[in-house]
């Protein structure tokens, strides 16, 4: 498959996943903002979290200064100036899809294209009260895209690259949410088991659709250790780091190819660490340090993948069959 094609497939999937994740983060911020202030703290305090998770704080401050509900929401959801906004992500996803229209199914293209057309329609007249519906819509479109993809695309390496983009992005996002939220939570609350604690951890879990899973698995008060365990080590939790790395590693094995040795090694190592890791060790190292390390590894894995598959260089060393060309006659022109 063409390197440029897989590059676009990879980024198409990443952009859609990123749009969904941003919608999740914002959704939870909105819900939390409805709680009494003494539980969550000041408005600015609350609204820095989504900015930090998505890595958009610096860009936001340059444009708007202090974090406020409406401007943060707009900046992360619809602002075309923000390279990570939902708007920009869905736009980029469509650009990627358009560049590889012949490599995706027409149903996939239609979902992405219709999403983009609809986004332009709704974003022109968005009222603040409507944002929760908008976040649901973004999640729905992402679910729909994933479903259509699995239901229509040939199971060849193009699907593997789509999975790779999706789960690298998801792992990255889950790690960030955990890191940022955990900071906030630890600083604010000493009283484990309080009502505030319940809501705050609850909102974190909800942002990654893990609240119900938590109740089901632990049936107990929400504790930081268990939240971390659920989102890092449990492989049955679809947005946990472990589950994401399961998918990343298997996608890389399916893709194979002699150029990808380093990427496979790197993914395998991370996967093994999650597979055999213990939550006590994570906390001994320090959760923040652990997650920082993890994000660093994801970053270098991304680079390895780019070098091995996405960049265009002359792979002459691994030409499958190279016929020996006998004397070439020069044709005069």
């Amino acid at each position: 498959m063409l390197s440029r094609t897989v590059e676009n497939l990879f980024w198409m999937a990443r952009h859609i996943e990123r749009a969904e994740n941003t919608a999740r983060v914002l959704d939870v911020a909105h819900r939390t903002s409805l709680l009494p202030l003494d539980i969550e703290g000041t408005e600015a305090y609350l609204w820095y979290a989504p900015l930090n998770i998505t890595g958009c704080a610096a860009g936001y401050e340059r444009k708007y200064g202090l974090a406020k509900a409406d401007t943060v929401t707009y900046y992360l959801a619809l602002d075309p100036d923000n390279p990570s906004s939902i708007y920009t992500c869905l736009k980029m996803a469509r650009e990627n899809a358009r560049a590889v229209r012949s490599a995706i199914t027409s149903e996939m293209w239609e979902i992405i294209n219709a999403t983009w057309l609809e986004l332009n329609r709704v974003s022109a007249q968005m009222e603040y009260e409507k944002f929760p519906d908008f976040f649901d819509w973004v999640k729905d479109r992402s679910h729909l895209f994933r479903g259509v993809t699995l239901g229509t695309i040939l199971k060849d390496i193009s699907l593997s690259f789509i999975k790779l983009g999706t789960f690298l992005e998801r792992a990255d996002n889950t790690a960030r949410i955990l890191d940022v939220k955990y900071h906030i939570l630890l600083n604010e609350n000493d009283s484990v088991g309080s009502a505030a604690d319940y809501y705050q951890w609850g909102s974190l879990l909800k942002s990654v659709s893990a609240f119900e899973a938590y109740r089901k698995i632990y049936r107990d008060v929400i504790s930081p250790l268990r939240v971390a365990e659920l989102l890092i080590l449990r492989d049955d939790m679809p947005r946990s780091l472990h589950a994401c790395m399961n998918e990343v590693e298997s996608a890389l094995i399916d893709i194979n190819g002699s150029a990808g040795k380093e990427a496979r090694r790197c993914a395998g190592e991370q996967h093994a660490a999650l597979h055999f890791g213990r939550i006590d060790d994570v906390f001994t190292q320090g959760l923040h340090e652990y997650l920082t390390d993890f994000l660093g590894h994801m970053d270098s894995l991304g680079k390895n993948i780019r070098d091995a598959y996405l960049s265009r260089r002359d792979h002459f060393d691994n030409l499958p069959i190279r016929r020996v060309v006998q004397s070439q006659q020069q044709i005069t022109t």
Partner: protein
Amino acid sequence: MNMNTKNYFDEMRIDNKTIRDIYQRYQHWQNQLPIGALERKSAEAELLFRRLGITFAVYGESTGSERLIPFDVVPRIFSASEWNRLERGIKQRVKALNAFLHDIYHEREIIKAGIIGKEQVLGNVLYCQKMQGVDLPNQVYAHIAGIDLVRVAEDDFYVLEDNLRTPSGVSYMLENRKTMMRLFPELFASHAIEPVEHYPQMLFDTLRESAPAGVSDPVIVVMTPGSYNSAYFEHAFLASQMGVELVEGQDLFVHDKKVYMHTTEGAQQVHVIYRRVDDDFLDPLVFRPDSTLGVPGLIDAYCHGNVSLANGVGTGVADDKSTYLFVPDMIKFYLGEEPLLSNVPTWRLSLRDDLKYVLEHLPELVVKEVQGSGGYGMLVGPTSSKKEIEAYKQRILSDPANFIAQPTLALSTCPTLVETGVAPRHVDLRPFVLSGKEVRLVPGGLTRVALSEGSLIVNSSQGGGTKDTWVLEN
């Protein structure tokens, strides 16, 4: 001049009361539709096209702007016998044009025979010196040709122009059919309509036959200038329909006079390139050095016979509007046959008498640039103001040899859904002709329609629309 459409051949109506045979069943169906039904279907069609993203970019507008080509829900219908005649004429013409291209890049018999002037061929800016003596598989240069036809009477068709470089529009032919079948399945049940959906398979067969000698299972790709090109949708569409890679210049490289593409598995050799990139941009080492769309060394690999390009390089010399004049002579010379399709009478403004006549009759004529295409830069006398005519006259005088003139043809009309209901509008027809080991085409082609009343310009870049074209089975 009276632009009343009644003066034109109407493909549906002989007069107010009489419907031509082939349209009778359709008209009967249309008469029974509830009021507003066609309009609703038309809106539905627009939604379908928009959702599918069947759009084109218009040059000169802000980057990234995408527009739909208006689709008209009223089909254009040909009978089997009408089509048979056209098909033979089209195949004949394309065979002669390919023979001409082979000849001028080899022995130049037609020049030696005094049928066409040496200067006309070798002095043409589209003549490609690099191609002299290069042998192509099947001696085919124009693998995909678009022959633009207009009709002026029941039995009178003219070839308006030949498109032998990178003719586009075939995806609209296919999507129009798909859309019609979705909107009006009952019409397809009541009419026996020749299918066109196998075009991509025919194209694939043609490309496979055009592979370099000795390559039995060629790797075929479609090459596009990129997603901002006006015809990008079509490039992607054809690649996916054929199941081949859609590549850009940056995906290809040349090593040891062979062409490879960058894949996740490393380099893979490419044998046939259906390129939708103009000659000038193909290879910065040979043509425009500033081209970033092309592949350095591509032409060298091509001339060594290691890769086939479809269409071949240097075909423009044969579809140039001044060479057009000689196509009937080519048919006689190469095939020993009488031309089945006529040319439009044409004045060459490089000739003194012709120039004089044309300048005196500008308000009646259509004047075109010899190398122009897409309806840009032409003058339609009868619909132009005095001021426009005067300005165009100055352009002609600055370089008369760059222009040809033709009478304003009474293009036939077809019923078309417009704001005021169904009304006659002028149409043309572009069949797509494929040449490999044999010459093939699907029945019909792309009908383009000028949507504004009285307009004779059907080009999509000038606000024209398209129709589904039916050839009825016998």
